[in-house]
């Protein structure tokens, strides 16, 4: 195994644990936006698509790369916009916000 691979594995493992610990107790209303927001992040493959399309590897790579960019960009742009639209619907009402503050004040250290 070469250096870079091991480095990649280390980073992969750490990020995996990090991802798992990011999602704690999410209210169920946010499940769909969270799913869709995470989906947009998985569009990061756009980076790979750009590198394939732009590296001048010949026509085959360019074509595949082009389609990959279109796909990934749909995922990215669509994903973030859809999430934003959903969240716009879930604006917090003043009442709920006040309740939260009260809860926090009542001691959120358990």
């Amino acid at each position, binding site marked *: 195994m070469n250096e870079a691979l091991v480095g990649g594995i280390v980073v992969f493992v750490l990020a995996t644990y990090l991802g798992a610990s990011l999602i704690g107790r999410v209210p169920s209303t946010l*499940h769909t936006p969270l799913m869709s927001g995470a*989906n947009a992040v998985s569009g990061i493959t756009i980076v790979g698509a750009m590198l394939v399309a732009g590296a001048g590897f010949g026509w085959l790579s360019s074509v*595949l790369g082009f389609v990959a960019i279109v796909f990934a960009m749909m995922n990215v742009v669509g994903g973030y916009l*859809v999430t934003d639209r959903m*969240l716009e619907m879930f604006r917090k009402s003043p009442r709920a916000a006040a309740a939260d503050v009260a809860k926090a004040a009542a001691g959120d250290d358990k």
Partner: protein
Amino acid sequence: MIPDYLERILYLVAAVLFITGLRQLGSPDTARRGNRISALGMLLAIVVTLLDQAIVSYGTIIAGIVVGSAIGAFMARTVKMTSMPQMVGLLNGVGGGASLLVASAEFLHSEERGVAVTADVAFSTQLGVLIGAVTLTGSIIAFAKLQEMITGRPITFSGQQVFNALLFAAIVGLGGWLIFDPNAPEWVFFVFIGLALLLGVMLVLPIGGADMPVVIALLNSYSGIAAAMTGFVIQNEVLIISGALVGSSGIILSQIMCRAMNRSLSNVLFGAFGSVVQQSSKSASGLTVNTTSIEDAAIQLAYAQNVIIVPGYGLAVAQAQHQVRELADLIEKRGGTVKYAIHPVAGRMPGHMNVLLAEANVPYDKLFDMDDINDQFERADVALVVGANDVVNPAARTDPSSPIFGMPILNADKAQRAIVMKRGMSAGFAGIENELFYDSKTQMLFGDAKGSLSKLVSEIKQL
């Protein structure tokens, strides 16, 4: 055009923005900001990549970005709120498709040059191809099921499990060949892709339409892993980190979603196989229901002080959100108070009822979470159940043999009186009888929710 180390640091910054964004997405106050922070990270990653030294031609890239963004933006702007889950599924599918294409392009390019790739790169490549392909076709099937282009019922056929096992074995075999024999003929690769695409279809077909949100969350996790594998292939850290983040958070999210429905992930994925069709333990024989008329129900609602409305999947089917709001406004104008009780898994996707009622401009502070309102049912004069069934089924509390036993439910049965609007006596998603309907305090108002609600409104107006 920027030095290598700077590129890596900037990619790291992008990854940190994803991390911050995802964390903030998990809490209502910060969710929207979190999404934007995450989008900023993506923008940074794209800009940094544009500056990468390996990139020599920009034409294709710019064209692809413009086309893809336009399609994505159009889809996001025009989709109906209630079609969100299938939309997310579709977007997720194309994301997986992108990973599939990138990994394939890398593979074909190194074939072309005749360079022998090391086993670990070959391994990541084939894994990226496999997972990307499964994500692509799996998501398309999920989309089709939710869009009702194909039946929402689990699709099974005899020998399906044997077929799937063989399919999987073939994929593993071909993948191994590709990894360990750098001179494997090219057709092997294409057959490998074909079988992987088929696998995605086969995995999702036997899952019921109502479980698709969970499937999409899971496929989302897959597409993250596919991106991470692509990252190993092209040795790019930001792909590895972000892919792994999505990969693990997606799995956790799908587990949380299952738990809210009181089911296990494996039950969702493989439940259709070998399931002895659950006999509902309580059968309805010998029990009768009280029915009521529009006129009668209208009078009760018109003079009620406290009304709690329990919306369910039937409200979405009937698309009666505007009518329900009209009725509520009317009751309030006559001096009563109306609250909506939102069960976490009412409908067919998390937040379904919130989205639906928000569409009809129901004020957000009239929507109450289960835990906040459950104590108030006892003081309610009428609980108006509109197309909900499982989420108000008392068997979840009382009958250990019921498939929904243990799921927290809304206490509609504790109200002074319950009016249940549905078309007939059919069961809900869980396919079981509901004792509430036979309760002496319950009155059934049969008919399509939209129709009944409109009639109630005009009836009350005349009082």
